[in-house]
């Protein structure tokens, strides 16, 4: 049966949706007169799905045909599901039509492995070529580097795309061997290393790269995961690591049973919070967790850290430097900036902070403001814990997501 573009889109968007790295932020504005499209450096969400994730890019697979057999994947060769593929031209036209109407910021293209790696990568590149050269499309393109494809093809991808990525998939080599026998850590990371090197030859800034890890399909601790992320950030290899709560779609002897397995959304949320601390708040992974530990479900990682380091507090918000203030639970970067701005003019009290619409719900236990401090509880861990817990639901409800987690904004 021949499928229409509508059918293909339905199927291939469905198979691509588990990949969470959709942010289009962090690229330079690149406006060129008269060309179609331009990227925006803070990332734009064009809609939000019914699960509350940002839609920024047309995220599809070129094809869901795949010769690999990764245990966790809905498209693995051993699954009996309908298969199809876009032609590069169909995809390019779809992108342009969506882009013109402002449905999307651009394209996020990935694919299952059709025939072999090089063949697949060539088809992806063919789509990019049509977009960039024929339509002179200047909007955002994120393309997956197919691990194992040749260096020339990866080279071309870095020329045509705004961002490239390759998913590490699982946090350790052992789990990979168990669940994705066709892949290895070296194989998954080598296209990224290669892309970095060739883009560095051309500019002094490497092309933007990201990766994704599935959380909850294998047995690594959050400590292992954060350690891995932080090593990837430190090598300046990646701009973002995305975490994806494992959603069980297959039965497999090394995987949780689908019927019993709910995606670990809260854990995923905590990992994003911790990742934020790594990237922007100057924390190191071994400050956040000890070896083999998992992130606390009750408290966010910053609060959890504070509870273990009460000797660090209270902090005087009228004098403390920014990097110290950033460690106060309940105060985000926006609040800190307001405080830094306002305290140049007067010594701030609790009252002043409230006037500035800064929530003290959590922070009040950890700060001094002029002659104000919170007298009702002292800095004893147990009492503080109780006080924080009694603040109710929002501490543990994963629905109150910070939206920036998905858009990559501050």
């Amino acid at each position, binding site marked *: 049966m021949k499928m229409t*573009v*509508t059918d293909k*889109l*339905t*199927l291939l*968007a*469905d198979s*691509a*949706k*588990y990949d969470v790295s959709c942010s289009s932020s962090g690229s330079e504005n690149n*406006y060129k007169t*008269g*060309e*179609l*499209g*331009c990227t*925006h450096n*803070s990332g*734009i*969400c*064009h*809609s*939000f*799905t*019914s*699960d*509350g*994730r*940002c*839609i*920024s890019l*047309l*995220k*599809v697979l070129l094809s869901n045909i795949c010769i690999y057999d990764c245990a966790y994947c809905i498209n693995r060769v051993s699954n009996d599901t309908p298969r199809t593929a876009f032609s590069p031209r169909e995809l390019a036209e*779809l992108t342009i*039509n*969506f882009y*013109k*109407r*402002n*449905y999307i910021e651009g394209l996020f293209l990935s694919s299952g492995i059709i025939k072999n790696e090089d063949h697949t990568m060539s088809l992806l590149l063919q789509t990019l070529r049509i977009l960039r050269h024929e339509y*002179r499309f200047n*909007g955002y393109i994120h393309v997956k580097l197919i691990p194992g494809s040749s260096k020339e093809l990866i080279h071309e991808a870095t020329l045509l795309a705004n961002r490239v990525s390759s998913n590490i998939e699982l946090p350790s080599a052992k789990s990979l061997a168990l669940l994705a026998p066709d892949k290895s850590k070296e194989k998954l990371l080598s296209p990224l290393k290669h892309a970095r090197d060739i883009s560095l030859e051309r500019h002094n800034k490497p092309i933007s790269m990201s990766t994704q890890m599935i959380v909850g399909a294998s047995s690594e601790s959050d400590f292992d995961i954060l350690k891995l992320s932080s090593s990837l950030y430190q090598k300046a290899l990646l701009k973002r690591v995305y975490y994806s*709560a494992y*959603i069980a779609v297959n039965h497999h002897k090394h995987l949780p049973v689908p019927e019993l397995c*709910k*995606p670990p*959304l809260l854990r995923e949320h905590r990992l994003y919070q911790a990742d934020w601390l790594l990237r922007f708040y100057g924390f190191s992974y071994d400050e956040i967790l000890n070896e083999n530990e998992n992130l606390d479900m009750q408290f966010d990682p910053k609060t959890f850290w504070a509870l273990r380091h009460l000797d660090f507090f209270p902090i005087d918000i009228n004098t403390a430097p920014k990097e110290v203030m950033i460690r106060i639970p309940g105060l985000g970067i926006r609040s800190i900036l*307001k405080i830094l*701005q*306002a305290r*140049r*003019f*007067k010594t*701030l009290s609790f009252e002043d902070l409230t*006037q*500035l619409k800064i929530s003290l719900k959590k922070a009040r236990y950890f700060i001094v403001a002029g002659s104000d401090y919170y007298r009702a509880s002292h800095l004893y861990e147990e009492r503080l814990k109780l006080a924080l817990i009694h603040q109710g639901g929002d501490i543990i409800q994963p*629905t109150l*997501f910070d*939206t920036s987690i998905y858009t990559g904004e501050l």
Partner: protein
Amino acid sequence: MMVLYDGSFEGFLTLVYEVYYAKLHVSAIVKKMPERLVFERVYEILSDETKATKVLHALQKHFTKERQRTIFNIFLCDTKTHEHSLLEYIRIGFKNPKLLGNITNPHLFYIQTLEKELLSLVHKMYGFTRFEELEDGTLYAKIETKFNILPFLGEHFSKRLGKIPFIIHDMTRSLAFVKDESSTQIHSIASFDAPIYSQNEAHIKELWQRFFKATAIQSRHNPKLQKNLVPLLYRTYMSEFQA
């Protein structure tokens, strides 16, 4: 005393002029005579181009580019009563620009917060604006927004859409940003005909709706979160929410 002006930017600048030269003591600024009885004297400002221009030049001399922008931006927040705070902002700026950062002053904090609110609305609408293709290839978008953000959207989409002519129609204010080969302008729109769409339009819209549905993950279903992120009032012209 209470001051009445016509709500235009020119009117407001005239007001600033009067404050300085007629030494008005302002207790409130209104755009319409209040319907309830007022015992205060009401001073009416008549927009005056010469006076307004004088003030404009003074602003350009004494305020940095960025702060001039702030003043214009605040004026785009046309559904808020910001005049009194804006007047204070200007007064303080003339006196000592260094003090403008002092957000422990409630007026200055209000201005800073309002401008952030405007810019965050602008950012949202960069994403939520939806174009439809007309018969002649022009792209046409309708919007209804709390503040007047057409100048922002116009500039943003001029960069994006290359040579394609487009219209953004602010239904609330009956204004339209129109860009074609020869000109770029904001018009006021008295009446308009029902647009005729291109042949492809319905099909593309259907594809978009399909994509929108297919890309959601059922086991993470969370409509409450979705509603926080795209409140209902933004959804009027977003076709993915109509299906």
